[in-house]
């Protein structure tokens, strides 16, 4: 079966200090083009539909970079990202944005809801960007909020919601348009253990009951214990992989 996502020889190098520092280094004799850090080294991975996969590793191991590259919000220095056999890593930003809009959902560590929109408006926004009509998107957004258990808070702005509620709204926003995959970067890191447990249960439920594919990063052993597949990353390389299904 063709993988949903294929990463081929992904390398990511960050220029520390940005291009200006690089230029400055070259001006000073050409031998010091600025500092660079290799976050991912020739990494190749496949992911399949319906997975509930955790990317594990200590801080600075490259988890977030990997998720960003899978999510096409960052580009690899070398290598290719394929979705259902289609190479997306070389698409123009406008086309990439459209791809993300229709195919991906994101959950961030810091929730990252849009502060001037209410919970339901945040969820609706993805549908609005897709050009879906007002009635349908309102109905689908409320349904998504109901599914994650925060329908009662639909009309509140993020600053009036608890961390757990905000993250649930973020999950609702990530699934409302039925994406191919939901990418979650340390989704429980800012939550207390009880709320984190509840959120994880919700994600598992969405995966098992509704077939939503989840790729998430974490270094929390309790979270990792719930994953069906765990990929261990260290210094930008795959250190190990465990399939629990």
């Amino acid at each position: 079966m063709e993988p949903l996502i294929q990463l081929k020889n992904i390398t990511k190098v960050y220029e520390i200090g940005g291009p200006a520092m690089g230029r400055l280094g070259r001006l000073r004799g050409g031998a010091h083009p600025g500092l660079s850090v290799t976050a991912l080294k020739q990494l190749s991975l496949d992911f399949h539909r319906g997975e509930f996969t955790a990317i594990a590793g200590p801080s600075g191991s490259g988890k977030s970079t990997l998720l960003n590259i899978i999510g096409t919000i960052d580009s690899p220095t070398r290598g290719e990202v394929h979705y259902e056999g289609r190479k997306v890593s070389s698409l123009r930003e406008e086309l990439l944005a459209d791809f993300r809009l229709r195919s991906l959902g994101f959950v961030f560590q810091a929730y990252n809801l849009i502060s001037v929109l209410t919970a339901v408006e945040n969820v609706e926004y993805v549908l609005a960007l897709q050009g879906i009509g007002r009635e349908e998107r309102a109905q689908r957004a409320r349904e998504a909020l109901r599914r994650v258990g925060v329908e009662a808070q639909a009309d509140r702005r993020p600053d009036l919601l608890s961390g757990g509620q905000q993250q649930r709204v973020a999950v609702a926003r990530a699934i409302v348009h039925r994406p191919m995959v939901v990418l979650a970067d340390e989704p429980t890191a800012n939550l207390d253990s009880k709320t984190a447990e509840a959120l994880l249960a919700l994600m598992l439920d969405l995966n098992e009951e509704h077939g939503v594919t989840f790729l998430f990063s974490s270094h929390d052993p309790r979270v990792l214990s719930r994953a069906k597949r765990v990929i261990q990353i260290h210094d930008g390389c795959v250190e190990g992989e465990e399939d629990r299904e």
Partner: protein
Amino acid sequence: MSSALILLAWRNVWRNRRRTLITLLSIAAGLAALLFGQSLVYTIQYQLVEKATGVHTGHIQILEAKTADFKFPDRYIPDPGGIEKILDATPEVAVYERRVVVTGMISSKKEAAGVLLCGVDPERDPRVLQMSRYLKRGRLLGPDGEGVYLGDKLAAKLGVNLGDEVVLMGSARDGSMGAELQRVTGIFSSGSQTFDASIIYVSIKTASRLMALGDEVNDFVIRVRDPMRLDEARDELARRLRGRPVRVVTWEQVDFELVGIRDYQNALLDIVLCVIFLIVSLGILNTLLMSLFERVREFGVLMAIGAGPRFIRRMILLESGILGALGGALGLAAGCAIILYYRKAGFVLPVGESIGFFMPFDSVLFLRFDWGRHVTAGAAVLLTSVLSGLPPAFRASRMKPAESLRHI
């Protein structure tokens, strides 16, 4: 434009209420001040033109072809009757009169003074020019055309009053010295030193007799039906008068210094306009840049969930457009309110006294709307606002989603 874009842009504008209100107020205050300035200058210009054309120059003049100084036409037009027939048949002409305008002297028992002597048509003059409005005592020239009316300052200098005798003198066309004894029938007070102290009005019959003229005149003063189509009227008259030894000039050619003043004031207004737009655009740019730096992370989120660079650009441009439209609307409303107030109450302008030296000019100005310029200023504020949104819009749209999301 999608409702999602409008909703988010609108909410973003009000994200920091106080900052937005300060920006709006600065745009509005700038525009309102500009509108007031435009209205004031327009009113001054309008009054200058009205007074200049109304009291002496008229809209159009017909002068002898070789007349060099249009203000003091010292050459004579032959066959004025033939010209009158053409004027009567020209639809653009509303009313006209023939005049003899010469320099001469007026003397009383006590004093003498050099004057510009205007020989006017007693019956037509009040319809062509407005000097009669400034008559303070006595009456205009009677139907028989006898008498003289003069300004209060000249009357005071000469020590004459209504009914007193004065002698008019001038160097006649035949080389003799002409003299006429007349009684003062009226005294006017226009507020203008030039008019009140050095111009006197007699009938054209008296002036012609004094200058030993036959039927000749120095000029025809014409009021046209549509002052906005002045050049067309002049061209039409010139066409009809072709072959005659005359030239047709508009008030802009006679009172060219007024055109200079108008152009100078307009240039000043344009500079003020640019300064205000610069302030407006810097204000908006500042607001948008501050808002942009506060929202870098949110741009990352928007881009991650599928908003492309074009969406981000349009959103920021819309935000700047909203700021410009709201500020512009506030400014237009405030500016119009100020103009309306001074349109009713009048605005005392000290410069009226200085302009009044040269021509009758009211010191209390009742402001007029200069809609063309007002609308242009409002539209320019909107355009400037949108343009000042361009740098932040392009800057935000070039952000990388992952980098934006890392922004603290």
